[in-house]
């Protein structure tokens, strides 16, 4: 007899698990969605800065200089790129995003003095024209990839994986494969498009080295070559990318977003950004390549504090994707009835894969796309980037640093055992790093 005992939810079968079993039983195929991992993960919130006091003195806010610039590609590239702030816009495809969204990101990044990045499907005129510094992704699908576009880019990013789906290829469902998107990718319009997960003409680090050399030969050894990996065996991957001749390594943690991927990939593959930064920095230091091969970290960066913590752990720059879309009003309560039509509400939307984005960002529908004014969107992105940079600078000054790159792990303490072990900084109030010191 249960009497009037309050119901107890099963920890093994919480409501979202039950709902997924019901959905799978009805549809017989995996669930596909946008966004990043939803599960709670150790993250930058679990670290705090140890601001200066008696043992260290701070810099005066606004008066004493605190640099934020970063140069990427100093190892081999004839023309490295210099960014005014260490925050870049991550690769997102035209196709996944509307042309207006791509243009807005380009305008915003350019106004903030930083770079934006193409995605699967190649470069659009709109984004080249709007972006002062444009990184060109070289992806397994090679959709839209042409040597002319490669030469028009300011840097090349060889994409091996991304945090949302390390080991998986891209996906674009038919409703977003418009005539223009299909034309750029040489695919029939309207198909559910799957991108390859491996490059068609190389496998493994030895081949990658030869591939990077070919890309350099074709672009006259001018452009910085980045290698992007999803965070998994990060130490090995970063080391091998360096060995293969990368100028920069982009490490994308599992909080990194996607426009469309199987839910099981997003939630169950990869490691969080926090340990990935530390593993990448360790690998670079072991090879005496820290600060020589630049490290760009992405996956769940939201605030200037996140930026500062990533830099303190040793990154040279960070990259933002989902947060930049939020600056463009992703999940803003503007068209509640259109969110409702997707079965979600503002603040809980992850329906990018549907192509019915209520705020005009992840859509190819001309009516929806018009809801995003690229000029206004560009201003919002610039404002957001400027805020991140100022917050990061403020924290660096508070730690007495004249450049954001002077932040170091010693400026941090961890609030949880997990964060202490993963980031390898001491648990606050102790000198204990679980797994590393007694």
């Amino acid at each position, binding site marked *: 007899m249960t009497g009037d005992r309050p119901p107890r939810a099963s920890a093994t079968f919480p409501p979202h698990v039950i709902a997924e079993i019901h959905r799978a039983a009805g*549809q*017989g*195929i995996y669930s*596909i969605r946008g966004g990043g991992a939803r599960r709670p993960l150790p993250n930058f919130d679990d670290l705090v800065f140890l601001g200066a006091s008696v043992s260290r003195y701070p810099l005066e806010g606004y008066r004493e200089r605190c640099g934020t610039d970063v140069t990427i590609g100093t190892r081999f590239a004839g023309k490295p790129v210099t960014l005014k702030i260490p925050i870049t816009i991550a690769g997102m495809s035209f196709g996944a995003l509307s042309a207006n969204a791509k243009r807005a990101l380009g305008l915003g990044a350019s106004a903030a003095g930083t770079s934006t990045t193409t995605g699967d499907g190649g470069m659009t005129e709109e984004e080249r024209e709007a972006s002062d510094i444009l990184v060109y992704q070289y992806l397994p*699908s*090679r959709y839209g*990839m*042409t*040597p*002319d576009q*490669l030469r028009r880019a300011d840097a090349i990013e060889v994409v091996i994986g991304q945090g949302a789906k390390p080991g998986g290829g891209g996906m674009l*469902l*038919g409703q977003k494969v418009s005539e223009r998107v299909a034309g750029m*990718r*040489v*695919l*029939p319009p309207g*198909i*559910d498009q*799957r991108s*390859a997960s491996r490059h*068609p*003409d*190389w496998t493994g680090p030895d*081949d990658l080295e*030869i*591939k990077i*050399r*070919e890309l350099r*030969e*074709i*672009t*006259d*050894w001018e452009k910085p070559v980045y290698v992007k990996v999803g965070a998994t065996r990060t130490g090995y991957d970063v080391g091998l990318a360096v060995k293969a001749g990368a100028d920069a390594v982009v490490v994308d943690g599992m909080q990194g977003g996607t426009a469309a991927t199987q839910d099981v990939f997003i939630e169950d593959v990869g490691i969080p950004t926090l340990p990935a930064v530390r593993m990448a920095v360790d690998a670079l230091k072991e090879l005496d390549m820290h600060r020589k091969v630049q490290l760009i970290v992405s996956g769940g960066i939201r605030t200037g504090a996140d930026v500062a913590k990533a830099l303190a752990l040793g990154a040279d720059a960070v990259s933002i994707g989902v947060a930049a879309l939020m600056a463009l009003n992703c999940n803003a309560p503007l068209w509640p009835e259109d969110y409702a039509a997707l079965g979600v509400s503002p603040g809980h939307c992850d329906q990018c894969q549907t192509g019915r984005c209520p705020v005009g960002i992840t859509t190819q529908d001309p009516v929806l796309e018009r809801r995003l004014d690229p000029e206004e969107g560009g201003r919002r992105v610039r404002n957001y980037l400027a805020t991140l940079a100022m917050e990061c600078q403020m924290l660096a000054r508070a730690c007495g640093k004249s450049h954001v790159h002077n932040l170091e792990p010693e400026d941090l303490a961890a609030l949880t055992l997990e964060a202490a072990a993963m980031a390898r900084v001491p648990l606050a109030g102790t000198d204990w790093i679980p797994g590393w010191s007694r």
Partner: protein
Amino acid sequence: MSAREEIDLDAVPVRRLNRLLQGRDSARQAGSFDVLNPRGRHALAAGLVDPIDVVIHGHAGYYCAGMNQQARVTVAGNAGTGVAENMMSGEVRVHGDASQSAGAAGWGGLLAIGGDASARCGISMKGIEIVVGGSVGHMTGFMAQAGCLVVCGDAGAAFGDSIYEAELYVLGEVETLGADCVEKDMDDRHVARIGELLGRAGFAADASAFRRYGSARQLYHFRIDNAAAY
């Protein structure tokens, strides 16, 4: 007619060769070049943009004539992985065999391989025309999107796997067809197309004896019924 220019790779680094062939230091848009002692070096004649003639006398390594535009490149030997990968236009001829991923992701132009081509020939092809005098390895035509591949010998396992709209023709045996690749009817237009490509490649074969393969278009949309193929 202007004289042919010789470049000896035992004396000149690949960097210099490619700068010369890419016309980076001159306004030249034509010319003929003989590349000596290639010895399997990589990225030879990569990224060419002008309608020049280049003959590589010996074996080439990876990505020979990669991303070619307009140039006519001949490898008088064998070619390594990814010959003419992402080619946009022009012609690349390999007298011997080609390693894997020949013509990968190519958009246009003609790739003619006199001998055999290894695995993944024409993978992700986007409009290139490939004619292989011999046989091709496994996974040839994987995810082939557009263009035409003519194989005068046999095709290895999983031929045309996950193919989109490319046309594949084989004279000999096909070991197995990949997911969503099916044999299709041939008509006079197809025979004429094969004949024309054989003619341009310089290979002799009976165009009417080929068989045609293409997409069944069953995997274009995610469906539970296709789960076994994913």
